């Protein structure tokens, strides 16, 4: 039969175990959200830079816009902070496809129409929903110069 001391020790152990589980789980959840935020920031920054670039190219402030997906990725990386060059799950933050990578949180980059249209895809990373935006040079110019 368990004596009172054993019961108390079991109670203490249970409290301690629960606390450890709570702390570890919360830490994991916060880390997960930080990864999601990093992916979201990479996505919004890529959108901002590519949109600005297309506007500058349209008004003649920039000689040539990137024509391929790879060139777009290079240009985005050149204009962004090093902290978002890596995906939260490892590997590059921007990859050549139209889906992204839901395992690493990498943003998918696809250029069409000789680089004049750009599709950026935020992957369904952890609890992040998949989101895609298409930046068309014609629309950007229309919005920039009403």
């Amino acid at each position, binding site marked *: 039969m368990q*004596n009172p001391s054993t019961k108390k020790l079991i109670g203490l152990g249970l409290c301690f175990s629960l606390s450890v589980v709570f702390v570890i789980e919360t830490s994991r959840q916060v880390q997960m959200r930080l990864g999601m935020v990093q992916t979201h920031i990479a996505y919004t920054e890529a959108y901002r830079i590519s949109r600005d670039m297309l506007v500058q190219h349209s008004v003649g402030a920039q000689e040539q816009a990137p024509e391929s997906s790879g060139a777009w990725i290079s240009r985005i990386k050149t204009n962004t902070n090093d902290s978002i060059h890596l995906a939260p799950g490892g590997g590059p933050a921007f990859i050549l496809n139209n889906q992204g990578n839901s395992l690493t949180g990498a943003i998918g980059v696809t250029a069409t129409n000789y680089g004049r249209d750009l599709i950026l895809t935020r992957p369904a990373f952890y609890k992040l929903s998949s989101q895609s935006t298409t930046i068309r040079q014609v629309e950007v110019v229309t919005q920039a110069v009403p």
Partner: protein
Amino acid sequence: MSATHDDFDDDDAESTPGDRRQLKNFFVKPRYQLQYVNWFIFGAFASLVTTVGLIHYRLRDVDHLLNSSADATATSQIPVYHAFSDITMIALAGFVVFTLFACGLAILINHRVSGPMIALVACLEGLKQGKYTDIRPLRNNDELTPIHDAIADLGRHLRAQQGTDHAEPVD
């Protein structure tokens, strides 16, 4: 909350000399060893659960913010930044609340132990001077009452013994 003299006669954990060093006998007198520790554990656990709950609640907001923003502009990052600031503040607040609780508990324990200590020293000094019944009672909820009661018993016993000694005829 305070222990009484009679409580010490009750064995919460019956132990034999052979199993004294076993882990199950760690709390030989749980009623005395844990009465403040229980409060401490309760405070720690309550503040931890509250902090963790609030953090999870704010993390759900982060999920909602990241998934509901239809635009991909940088302004959508601002509410997320605020949510993480709140999470940091919640964690710090939980730590501060627990620290205050622990400090309050430490002050309470100190109050309930140091007062009786002074009273007990005064009792012993009184006994040395022959004041066997001039023993100040302790406050309600004070600690060390079993020792105080034992000293009071000793005083009464010594007085009775002295009375008996004086009553004996001297040949």
